[in-house]
C-alpha cells in the first residue's frame, strides 16, 4: 500500500450538482482536541462549498465507521490498522499528511530512572523492573498501539499491579498518570496542551520508533452507495495540498512556541525514521 | 311524567362480590327520589351507576328509553347531570373557581359563570370565601362549595350523595327549604342519598330503602315509613316495637293477636292460629297514669306496664315499658314532666289498632 506521492495536486473541485455537499471526516480526538481541524476546515469549506462534519472518535471507532461507509474520509494515526483497512478494500487512497512524535513522560524525580535510556524499549524495561506505575491507554488507539509495539520490542509482556489501563483518551490518561506519579507514553500535542496542569516531565523522546504518523484515507465508494466520493476525494486532496501543508507547519507556534506537527505530504513513510 | 332512568337487572360487582343488585328501578322525570339505607348498602354505588361513572357488570341502564352504550361517548348524558359526591372533593384553587368548574367545562360565557356562581355562593352562605383556597375551607364550608358547584349547573338531573351531612342544623333546614322551592319551580329530577330519615321524609317524593345492595322497598314516604315491607326495613326506618304472636280472634277486619300472653288488636284479615309480626311506632304509643279514670279515647289497645328506663332524646323522652314484652314510647318533655315518670312506676300504654302495622307472617 503506497502513500500518496503527487506533490502537485490539482486545486480541489467543488461539489457536483448531483453530489452531496456533506463530507464526513472521521478522525481521532488528538487531532481534534489540538484545534488543528478548527483552523483547516473553514478554509476548505469556503473554498469548495462542501460542508465538513468532523467526527472525533477513538481510532477503532473511526476505522469501524469508515469500514461501514459511514464516513467519507479518514484522518488517523494507526499505520498497522490502516494497512489492514486498505487490504480489506475499504480505502481508496492512503496519503501521508504529517507527523509529530510520542515520548515517555513520568514524575520529574524519575523513580525508575529512565532518563538517559538509549531508547524507548530500554526505558520501558526499567519501568517494569522498578515496578513503577505505568498507565496504558488500553483503548486500542494509535497511541496504545504504539505503546504495545514498544513493549514488544523490549521483550516484556507487561502485567501486574503496576501496569494499569486507563481505558480513556490521552488527556485523561495524562492526568491520571500525573496523579498516580506514573509513567506513560503520550503524543506531543496533548501533552503540550495539558502541560501546565500536569506534574510530569518528558523523560525520553526522539526515538525513531516513537514517530506519530497521520494519514488521510479516502473511503472506498464501493463500500456503500451513500459515500460521498467526490467530497472525500476533495478533502483528502486538500489535506495534502501545498497551502494546507504550510498551515499545518505553522500550527501551534503562536501558542506553544513550537509547531505541533511536521507536514509530510509527498514523503515516504520510511524516510521519516 | 315519563321515565328518565330505567335500570334493569343491574349487578355491580366489587372484588367478585355483588354490591348492588337491582332487578328493576325506574326514576320518573321531575321525580325526587330519596335513597336511604344502612352504611355499606350500596347507595353511593347506585348513584355512581346513575351518573354513568361505573359500568355495571350486568344489566342495562336506560336514559329516556335509550339503553346506554358504554362504548360510545357518555358526555352528552353527563352534561345533563350534576353530581355531589359523599366526600367533598375540591380542587386546589379558589372557592370561586371550584364552584365554577362545571360551568367552565360547558364553556359558558364569563359573565354567566360569574352570575350563577356568585348567586349560589351567596345562597349557600359562602360568598365571602370566594377567593380563598378551597383546601382551607371547614368541613361544612367545603360541602357548601360542592353544592354550589353542582347547583350552578342548573342540570336536568341532580345526584346528591348525603349533601347535607356536614351542614349545621339551621343551615340544613333553610337549605332544604330553598332547594325544595327550586326543585318545585324548575322541576329537576333529583336522586339523593341520605342517612337522615327526616331528610328523606321532607324532601323525597319517593323513598327507596336499600339494604345489602337491594332495594327493599320503594314508595311514597308515607308508605315506607308507616308500612315497612319487611322486618329489616321496619327496624331501619325506626319502628322500634316489633312483636310477634298468634292470631287468637279474627272478625270485621280486626284481628286479635296473642303476644306474650297479652292481646293486641290490629286491622287486617288473617286466620286464627296464624303467626304474625306486628310493628308499632313508638310515637303512636300514649302513656297515661295507671290511677287515672279511663278516659274515652279511640285507642283500642290499653296495656298495663311498668317503666323500665327513660332517656331524653332531644325535645322528647324515650320511655321503655315492660308489658311482659318491651314496648317503647316517645313522649314530649312536658308529658314526661306532667306524668312525673320514674323507674318502676305503673302506667297504661295505649295505642290505636290502626297504629299497629302487620308486617307479615313469620314461619
Amino acid at each position, binding site marked *: 500500500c503506497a502513500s500518496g506521492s503527487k506533490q502537485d495536486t490539482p486545486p480541489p473541485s467543488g461539489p457536483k450538482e448531483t453530489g452531496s455537499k456533506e463530507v464526513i471526516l472521521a478522525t481521532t480526538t488528538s487531532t481534534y482536541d489540538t484545534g488543528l481541524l478548527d483552523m483547516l476546515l473553514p478554509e476548505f469549506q469556503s473554498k469548495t462549498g462542501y460542508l465538513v462534519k468532523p467526527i472525533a472518535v477513538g481510532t477503532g471507532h473511526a476505522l469501524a465507521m469508515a469500514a461501514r461507509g459511514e464516513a467519507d474520509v479518514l484522518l488517523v494515526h494507526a499505520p498497522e490498522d490502516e494497512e489492514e483497512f486498505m487490504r480489506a478494500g475499504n480505502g481508496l487512497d492512503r496519503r501521508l499528511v504529517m507527523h509529530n512524535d510520542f515520548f515517555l513522560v513520568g514524575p520529574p524525580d524519575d523513580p525508575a530512572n529512565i532518563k538517559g535510556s538509549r531508547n524507548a524499549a530500554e526505558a520501558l524495561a526499567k519501568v517494569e523492573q522498578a515496578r513503577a506505575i505505568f498507565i496504558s491507554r488500553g483503548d486500542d488507539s494509535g497511541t496504545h498501539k504504539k505503546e504495545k509495539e514498544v513493549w514488544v520490542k523490549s521483550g516484556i509482556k507487561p502485567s501486574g499491579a503496576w501496569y494499569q489501563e486507563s481505558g480513556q483518551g490521552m488527556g485523561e490518561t495524562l492526568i491520571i498518570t500525573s496523579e498516580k506519579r506514573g509513567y506513560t507514553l503520550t503524543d506531543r500535542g496533548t501533552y503540550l496542551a495539558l502541560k501546565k496542569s500536569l506534574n510530569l516531565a518528558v523523560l525520553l523522546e526522539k526515538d525513531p520508533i516513537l514517530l506519530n504518523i497521520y494519514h488521510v484515507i479516502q473511503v472506498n465508494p464501493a463500500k456503500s452507495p451513500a459515500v460521498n466520493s467526490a467530497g472525500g476525494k476533495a478533502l483528502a486532496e486538500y489535506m495534502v495540498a501545498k497551502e494546507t501543508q504550510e498551515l499545518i507547519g505553522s500550527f501551534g507556534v503562536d501558542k506553544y512556541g513550537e509547531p505541533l506537527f511536521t507536514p509530510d505530504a509527498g514523503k515516504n513513510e520510511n524516510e521519516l525514521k | 311524567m315519563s321515565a328518565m332512568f330505567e335500570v334493569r337487572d343491574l349487578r355491580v360487582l366489587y372484588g367478585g362480590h355483588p354490591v348492588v343488585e337491582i332487578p328493576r328501578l325506574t326514576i320518573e322525570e321531575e321525580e325526587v327520589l330519596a335513597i336511604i339505607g344502612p352504611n355499606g348498602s350500596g347507595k353511593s354505588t347506585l348513584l355512581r351507576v346513575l351518573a354513568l361513572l361505573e359500568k355495571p357488570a350486568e344489566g342495562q341502564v336506560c336514559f329516556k328509553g335509550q339503553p346506554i352504550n358504554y362504548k360510545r361517548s357518555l358526555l352528552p348524558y353527563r352534561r345533563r347531570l350534576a353530581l355531589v*359526591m359523599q366526600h367533598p372533593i375540591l380542587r386546589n384553587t379558589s372557592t370561586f373557581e371550584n364552584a365554577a368548574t362545571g360551568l367552565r367545562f360547558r364553556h359558558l360565557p364569563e359573565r354567566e359563570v360569574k352570575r350563577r356562581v356568585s348567586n349560589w355562593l351567596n345562597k349557600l352562605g359562602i360568598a365571602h370565601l370566594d377567593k380563598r*383556597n378551597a383546601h382551607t375551607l371547614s368541613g361544612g364550608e367545603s360541602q357548601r362549595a360542592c353544592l354550589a358547584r353542582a347547583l350552578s349547573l342548573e342540570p336536568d338531573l341532580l345526584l346528591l350523595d348525603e349533601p347535607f351531612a356536614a351542614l349545621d342544623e339551621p343551615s340544613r333546614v333553610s337549605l332544604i327549604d330553598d332547594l325544595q322551592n327550586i326543585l318545585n319551580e324548575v322541576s329537576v329530577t333529583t336522586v339523593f342519598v341520605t342517612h337522615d330519615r327526616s331528610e328523606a321524609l321532607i324532601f323525597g317524593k319517593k323513598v327507596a330503602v336499600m339494604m345489602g345492595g337491594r332495594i327493599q322497598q320503594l314508595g311514597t314516604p308515607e308508605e315506607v315509613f308507616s308500612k315497612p315491607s319487611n322486618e329489616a326495613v321496619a327496624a331501619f326506618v325506626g319502628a322500634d316495637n316489633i312483636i310477634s304472636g298468634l292470631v287468637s280472634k279474627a272478625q270485621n277486619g280486626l284481628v286479635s293477636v296473642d303476644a306474650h300472653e297479652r292481646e293486641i288488636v290490629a286491622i287486617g284479615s288473617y286466620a286464627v292460629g296464624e303467626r304474625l309480626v306486628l310493628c308499632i311506632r313508638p310515637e303512636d304509643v300514649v302513656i297515661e297514669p295507671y290511677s287515672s279514670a279511663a278516659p274515652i279515647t279511640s285507642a283500642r289497645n290499653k296495656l298495663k306496664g311498668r317503666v323500665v328506663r327513660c332517656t331524653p332524646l332531644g325535645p322528647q323522652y324515650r320511655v321503655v315499658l315492660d308489658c311482659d314484652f318491651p314496648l317503647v314510647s316517645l313522649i314530649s318533655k312536658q308529658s314526661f314532666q306532667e306524668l312525673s315518670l320514674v323507674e318502676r312506676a305503673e302506667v297504661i300504654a295505649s295505642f290505636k289498632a290502626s297504629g299497629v302495622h302487620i308486617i307479615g307472617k313469620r314461619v
Partner: protein
Amino acid sequence: MDLIIDGIVQAFWLVVRGDPDVMRVIYLSLLVSGSATLISLFIGVPLGTLMALSRFRGRGFTLSLVNTGMGMPPVVVGLVVSILLWRSGPLGLLHIMYTPAAMVVAQVIIASPIVTGISMAAIAQLDPRLRMQMLGLGASRWQMLWVLFQEARLPLLTALMAGFGGVISEVGAVMMVGGNIKGQTRVLTTATVLETGRGEFGIAIALGIILLLLAYLVNLTLTHLQQQGRPQQ
C-alpha cells in the same frame, strides 16, 4: 480550587462579552434539549397518565420497563440511534445523522422514561374520586385530564425538570449522534468535554456554570408560571 474560581470568573466574562461562539452553543443547547423535553412531555405525560389511570394486565411489568428506561445509558442510546440513523441504517434516508434533529431524537429517548415514570407516580397519587367528581360535573375526557394535570402540577413540574435536567446535562448521546461539530451540533456539554480534553479546565467549568445558570433560569420561569393565579392561602 483556583480552577473553580477561575471558572466562575471566566463564566462571567463569557456571558458578559456575549461571545458569539458561546452564544451559539447556548442557543443550540436550549433548542435541542428544550425540543427534546417538550416532545418527551407529549410522550411521557400521556403514557404515564394512561399507566396511572387504567388497570390493564401487565401494568406492573410496563412500570418496571419504564423505571428501567430511566437507567438507559446515554452512550448506548447514542450508539443505537447512530446505528439506526447512519447512512447504512434503516433510517439513513432521513439524512439527519450529525444534525440537531438526531440529537433531539436521542434525547427524547433518554427523557421520555423519566417523564413517564414521574408523571405516572404523580397521577397515580391523586385521589381517584377527583376523576369521578369531575366527570360527574360534565367534564369531557380531556377536561378531566386537564384538571388532573393541574392538581398534580408540582410533581409534573418535577417530571419536566428532571427530564430537562437529564438531557441538558447529558453528553454521551449528543456527542455520538451530533458529532460535536463546531457551529452545527456543539452544545454546552460537548463543548465542556472538549475543553476538558484540551486541558482548559477553567473554560470547562465556566461552561458548566453557564449550563447550570441556564437550567436555573428555565426553572425559575416554570416555577413562576406555575405559581401564577394561585388563590390566597
